[in-house]
């Protein structure tokens, strides 16, 4: 008897639980969805990551200065291209805005962009003194190429 009861409870519970989204019309459809990173954002991140690694490889002596300069220029171009494309299309790209919003301010545009944090790679505003993502102090290098060093 008890077994039959438990069995009934299991069957009913499973049936209601599975049918619920159909009965309530939509189920979890209102659940918040984290937008996927846009292709441009990914491009930018990949390029920044590659720049960091390239710089470190140069310091480790794995790559000649000449190769380093060439490769770095390519990567910088790629990052900037992704950035400007992302900003140009930001109205139709809600994904990029919300992804960057937990890093740099969503309104950061190229005009305001100060460069990329060399510690975490996030973009920062021109007047920023600390990286909003990792908290590293940003030192102005004056190179004007949009990249600042952190630390001493």
């Amino acid at each position, binding site marked *: 008897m008890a*077994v039959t009861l*438990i*069995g009934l409870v*299991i*069957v009913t519970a*499973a049936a209601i*639980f*599975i*049918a*619920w*989204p*159909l009965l309530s*019309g*939509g*189920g*979890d*459809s209102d*659940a*918040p*969805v*984290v937008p*996927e*990173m846009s*292709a441009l954002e*990914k491009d930018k991140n*990949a390029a920044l990551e*590659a720049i960091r*690694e*390239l710089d*470190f*490889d140069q*310091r*480790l*002596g*794995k*790559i*000649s200065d000449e*190769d380093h300069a060439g*490769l770095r220029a390519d990567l910088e171009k790629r990052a900037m291209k992704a950035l400007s494309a992302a900003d140009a299309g930001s109205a139709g790209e809600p994904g990029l805005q919300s992804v960057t*919003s*937990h890093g740099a*301010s969503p309104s950061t545009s190229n005009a305001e962009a100060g460069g990329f944090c060399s*510690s*975490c790679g996030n973009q920062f505003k021109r007047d920023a003194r600390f990286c*909003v*993502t*990792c908290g590293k102090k940003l030192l102005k290098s004056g190179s004007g190429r949009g990249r600042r060093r952190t*630390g*001493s």
Partner: protein
Amino acid sequence: MSEIGRLAIVLGFIVAIWGSAASILGGLRRDKALVASGTHAAYAFSALTGIAVLALLQLLLTRDFNVEYVASYSSSTLPLWYTIAALWGGMKGSLLWWTFILAVCNAVVQVQNRHKNRDQMPYVTATMLITGGFFLSLLVFVTDPFERLPFTPSEGSDLNPLLQNYWMTIHPPSLYIGFVSTTVPFAFALAALATGKLSDAWIRTTRRWALFSWFFLSLGNLFGAAWAYVVLGWGGYWAWDPVENAAFMPWLTSSAYLHSVMIQEKKDMLKVWNMVLVILTFALTIFGTFLTRSGVISSVHSFTQSGLGPFFLIFLGIILAVSLGLLVWRLPMLKSKNELESVFSREATFLLNNLMFVGIAFTVFWGTVFPVLSEWVRGVKITVGPPFFNQVNAPLGLALIFLMGVGPVIAWRRASWSSLKRAFAIPVFAGVATGVIALVMGAGNFYAIVAFSISSFALATMFTEFWKGMRVRQAMMGEAPWTALSRLIGKNRRRYGGYIVHVAMVMVFVGIVASSVFKIEKQTGIEIGQSVEIGGYDVRFDGIEDESTEHVEIRKAKLAVFDDGELLGFVYPEKRFYKKPEQPTTEVAIWSTIGSDLYTVLGTYDEASKIGVFQLFLNPMISWMWIGGFVLFLGTVVCMWPTYAERTAEATSRIPAGSKTTS
């Protein structure tokens, strides 16, 4: 309780069918309600398999011998630990356990992705539910774990004594977790193919899962080796047994994938290849299950044999047909954006490394299935023994270790001659020096000298990587050495965690080489009070003790171990006679140090002459393998630990949409 368990698996099977159908239909028609119902089905599936596992556990613990499974794999005198382990001690239970682990993985995937990858998730859910449903269908229609007997035996026939070992409680679960979790990357790969969202989103989503399953496959293999070493009593740990091979092959392809996936992330190359590796890894786990359970191949694992082989073969066929079909359909979308620029580049070493891994996997596959094929085709069963595997795989293994030393220091895209010279000066010196030292110390074996030399080369590369990186950070940031080292690792966990794993692999490799090349073996009769010399140790036979419990009779030999006349301690090799089923087993005793293992086996003992026959082995450096296992764990943890950015991203994703973040 068996009725509840039976109900749970039948219902679970129905739920799996509904869930996969609803998910696929919902995905195709973009019907959110259907997709949500599929998600709920995935959770319900986990709950139901959980109920089934609990029901079986309850039956085992209450020793309900009316249930066929309980009567076959436990007894009233079986200790509690092994009674719990009996859950996966028999074929039916292990299939249920397998399904349960898969269901848990599925539930975790659902929770992780509740706010993301929404387009792909229906197909992920469907793939995992179809796989889970397949396993349950075997339990529902073919081999019911809750089957009752027409009578109740007064006693169960007990767990196979070979399985009554502490490794039993950890080896099968870790290997199963490794096998089963390969389903997750596979499901995401299929979902990417099905939806056409072929960017590397699926790769980033499953990166940790791939590493997770690789880690558990590594542990499963290593634990299996350790178990074989202490239980089977032949002095070794690996015999290229079909079932060992079955667990080794997915590890190989999964290792290949972990490497080649970096090329896709960084260079946008090898997209098709990575898909193939993920599909292959999953297919190999199913193939492994087929090998273990079909009985087509005789193996040390014969305790899980059954007539389920054809079902696994059919399922394997369906998996390959569907996934490769999808892959061919999407081929035009998977073109590489880049090309290999130079053979002296890190990309090239990665490619070579993949060739080695897949080459070894193919060799192992061929050696494993050849006996079956030859029997089918020519009617003659030819056994492929360890010499075949060793001869082909030893050079490939050496080449892999060599690449391990080359890859990290060589630059991406192309390396210049001068940078190569600078990078390899120390490692090459270390390699040559080790070779010379090994030669001088009398390691006469060519293979061993080369292996030690290459291992030392690879280790030197790894250490210089840490050293140089630390020095650069010290100079750049003005940090103290330890801070610099920990931040170096922290900032690039995948790279340095990977290096730690490489160190572990070198340790395992050195352990394997030393213990197989320099092994000493002696079979000898020793009279009580007399001693025998082996590899610098003196072993004295001090006597025999007999013990008896209602479960088992134990005959224990007392051996005193001396080094240079100094007593180090005692070891007690045993012969056991289990009463249910009546079966003798050998319990080895090992005197283990970092340098070598003295491995003792009691053969027979003659009361009249007071002579015991022993098999003694001296296995050099075998503990390096087990220590390597710990290092491997450490490296994997470093790799898997979330970075600062990932932790903040995760925290942000928990904040409901619409609310503002203050930053």
